[in-house]
């Protein structure tokens, strides 16, 4: 059997399943590999964890007291007389009213009634959709931020992972960019457009080297885009919170 390489020795040190099941046996028999392993062990044992400054027993309480004023209680589910939540009861009542309105309107005032119903449903749907879009957009921006942070520190070894994430984000980014343009939101559309170019550059390079990553970082100003994304994140988070007044926390 050939000698164990450094990666196999590291895997053995950390007790990871080595790719070659005979590695440990080889280590016991091969003086050269045993020497290399002993050296690795000595190196790694020399790297001690930085000792975190001790926290007293009251530390958790201090954290809680500092945090508590920033939190808004989640909405307590309220119950009606019959054990049905008020929200469900309200929804059922609203449905009943809508059905009744539709029936009466359809019978006596067909054209106008239909339009009214459409408008009412449209308004409710628009609000719900806006909330969902904001939540999903926030998630997209979070994922994008993580990718950009990784890109800032990546080397060639990280390229496959970065590319697969960039490909995933590229498609959704196009949709958000198009929606933002249609909705007349130039700040969001512009940032997503700049982001899209970076994603496309990372996703479509067949051989993404360290030099390519450096070029993307400097020429496409990923640091600046990261900043823009963080600004947008806080904006969308605020908007999302504004659509749901009763849940979550304020910072």
């Amino acid at each position, binding site marked *: 059997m050939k000698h164990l390489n450094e990666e196999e020795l590291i895997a053995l040190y950390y007790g990871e399943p080595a790719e070659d099941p005979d590695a440990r046996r080889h280590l016991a028999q091969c003086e050269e590999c045993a020497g290399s392993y002993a050296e690795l062990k000595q190196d790694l044992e020399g790297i001690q964890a930085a000792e975190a400054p001790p926290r007293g027993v009251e530390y958790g309480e201090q*954290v*809680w007291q500092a945090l508590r004023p920033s939190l808004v209680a989640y909405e307590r589910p309220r119950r009606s007389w019959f054990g049905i939540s008020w929200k469900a009861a309200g929804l059922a009542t609203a449905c009943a009213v809508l059905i009744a309105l539709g029936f009466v309107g359809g019978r006596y005032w067909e054209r106008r009634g239909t339009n009214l119903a459409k408008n009412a449903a449209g308004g409710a749907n628009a609000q719900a959709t806006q909330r969902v879009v904001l939540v999903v957009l926030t998630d997209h921006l979070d994922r994008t931020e993580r990718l950009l942070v990784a890109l800032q520190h990546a080397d060639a070894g990280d390229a496959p992972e970065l590319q697969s994430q960039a490909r995933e984000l590229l498609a959704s980014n196009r949709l958000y960019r198009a929606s933002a343009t249609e909705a007349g939101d130039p700040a969001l559309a512009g940032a997503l457009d700049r982001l899209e170019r970076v994603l496309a550059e990372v996703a479509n390079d067949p051989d993404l080297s360290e030099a390519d990553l450096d070029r993307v970082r400097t020429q496409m100003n990923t640091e600046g885009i990261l900043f823009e994304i963080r600004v947008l994140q806080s904006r969308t988070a605020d908007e999302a919170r504004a659509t749901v007044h009763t849940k979550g926390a304020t910072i």
Partner: protein
Amino acid sequence: MDGNDHSIVRAVLAGDKDAYGALVRAHSTTVFRVAFRIVGNEADAEEIVQEAFLRGYQRLESFELRSKFGTWIYRIAVNCALNRVGKSEVDAEYRHGEENDPEQKTVQVAATGADPERVLLSREIGTAHEQAMQRLTATERTAFILRHMEDRSMSDIADVLGIAPNSAKQAVFRAVQKLRRELAPLRGNA
């Protein structure tokens, strides 16, 4: 503890904000420790603890009750710390151009110990370790800290960093290889 944590989460989601205090009290020290190991700074680590628990509260509805709350908040804290490290690395790059004297980073050791040479050597080794760690990428550094110092499995690390298990393994391998290269000159002294 997990069952208890889960019932506390349910209570918080049912509107009992103060129940969250029990979770904060139970997990603050662990979160502080990992945050400190990643950012290497007490003040930043304390801010990360606050940020992690705040984000945790905001996302509590997405917490799945089959997971452990401790692992979940730990993951949030590592991500907050990673963001912080990423930010300060950018700041450090800006500062770098203004530094005229790279020798400022060397340690001047006062001869206060019983064996000044040994104290000097030990501090130099500590500084070299710290500098070698700073030269790793944020992902490599975090993966190494989680594996080597926090004794987390590769799958845990992959989960915490949101990367594939093989990428987590490679990040740990690269970190060890780089650290060994950087610290090779110290081998004779250690």
